[in-house]
């Protein structure tokens, strides 16, 4: 054995924080480079906000349209990144052996999941900034406690991440792609994002109100539009979805 050869073994894992930081940076770059992902996470929410904020397509009730819309679009942004985007990306990473290859790298699995979460949060911060700037330009006047808003966004992210990863870890990549887009569309229409929930029949409202997207958009609206303190009901619904989704994902997720 030559001690000085180019390839002489000198194994070792990098420090954990460096691994997770590198992984989160790579995941975020992959996401921002992907055209379809940008369509979902940036272009659709922005277009909906500008379109419905300036043209009376749907009767949004009293007050400025943007005061109703902005919380819904924020909820949509969270769903697009934490659920749809994450499900599709992770589904294809699983399909193409990326998860498998990384599982044999020094990065532990929980480190990979942490990096994915960081990447989702970074993307959401960019989305929230973008939506906020556009909404303010359209005359938005947000109210309420920023802490409540933060708590709603975090719980919403946890709920949608659990559901997205559950889908990505159990279905085929193509099925995940189709289902994640379909769910995105259905929840966009039926989850209080741009169409107020009270336009639906009473029975439907009760069910729709339990969806994570409705809880998030209504919760954000309670705070940002109506100045509520802590929307405990909505936070409770999101917490149940988060616990159930993450637990199921943890149990059923298959790495290949």
């Amino acid at each position, binding site marked *: 054995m*030559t001690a000085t050869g*180019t390839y002489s073994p000198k194994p070792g894992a990098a420090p954990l924080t460096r691994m997770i930081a590198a*992984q989160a940076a790579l995941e975020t770059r992959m996401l921002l480079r992907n055209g379809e992902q940008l369509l979902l996470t940036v272009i659709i929410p922005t277009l909906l906000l500008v379109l419905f904020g300036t043209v009376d397509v749907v009767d949004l009730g009293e007050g400025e349209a943007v005061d109703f819309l902005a919380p819904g679009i924020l909820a949509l942004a969270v769903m697009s990144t934490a659920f749809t985007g994450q499900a599709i990306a992770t589904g294809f990473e699983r399909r193409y052996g990326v998860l498998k*290859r990384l599982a044999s790298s020094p990065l532990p699995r929980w480190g990979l999941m942490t990096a994915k979460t960081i990447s989702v949060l970074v993307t959401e911060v960019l989305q929230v900034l973008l939506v906020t700037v556009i909404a303010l330009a359209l005359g938005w006047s947000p109210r309420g406690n920023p802490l409540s808003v933060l708590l709603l966004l975090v719980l919403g992210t946890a709920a949608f991440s659990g559901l997205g990863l559950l889908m990505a870890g159990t279905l085929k990549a193509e099925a995940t792609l189709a289902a994640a887009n379909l769910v995105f569309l259905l929840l966009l229409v039926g989850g209080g994002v741009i169409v107020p929930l009270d336009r639906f029949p009473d029975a439907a409202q009760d069910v729709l109100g339990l969806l994570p997207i409705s809880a998030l958009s209504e919760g954000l609206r309670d705070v940002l539009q109506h100045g509520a303190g802590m929307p405990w009901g909505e936070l409770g619904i999101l917490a149940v979805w988060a616990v159930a989704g993450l637990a199921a994902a943890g149990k059923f997720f298959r790495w290949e």
Partner: protein
Amino acid sequence: MQALVKRYGTKTAVDGLDLVARAGVTAVLGPNGAGKTTTVETCEGYRRPDSGTVRVLGLDPVRESAALRPRVGVMLQSGGVYSGARADEMLRHVAKLHAHPLDVDALIERLGLGSCGRTSYRRLSGGQQQRLALAMAVVGRPELVFLDEPTAGLDPQARRATWDLVRDLRADGVSVILTTHYMDEAEQLADDVAVIDAGRVVAQGSPEELCRGGAENTLRFSGRPGLDVASLLKALPSGCTAAEVTSGTYRVVGDVGPQLLATVTSWCAQHGVMPDRISVERHTLEDVFLELTGKELRA
């Protein structure tokens, strides 16, 4: 150093397989579906053995995965890279997960990955994808590298480049376990060859040992049709066989050495036969392989 001791059974894919790989290059050879990938992936910690025990570098690949992973480099048969990532970007990323990685630029240069430029992984050629996967397996300076069919589908130049890298790894003290169904690859690279069929090791040894053991060599020549094969056989030492394979071509099978060659040519001289196109075939690993695993097509 003992790189790997592995015993496990009852699973259909790998059925009571015993394999010990020592330092150096070990080739796991077998037909498609023989259980090569299953075996290697069990060593990599991807699969839990149903019974039996696996130890890699003295560690349990599943339970002691955290300690083992930094010491082992893995090249999957395919994939393993973000479809939107560039080759150098992915390689630099894997390097960042290790404490003392190789010089990434030198490795890119060495494996000819510089030409990939800004192309994303999904648009790279199959050969470029393979070489990237190889680079990712070695960049962390592991003690042991698993290569699952590292040269499948490569052009001859890329194949040589891969072989040269494997030889350099070996020279620098890295152990390599590779699966292949290319006989010449095993002959060229391996210190030790394990032939697997239907989930069992059917033979193991150095390429020379495997070629020597039990195998007979063949001498062929052409002459005029209808020679007296019985008379030739009488001249040959016992244990040999002789036959006219097709009209005018003859085959002698036995312990083919200088003496036997002389016997055949002098018999030809006595019978006024000019042995055209005389050839001696050394027994190759391929012959051994086909002898051990049969000639019928596999799944």
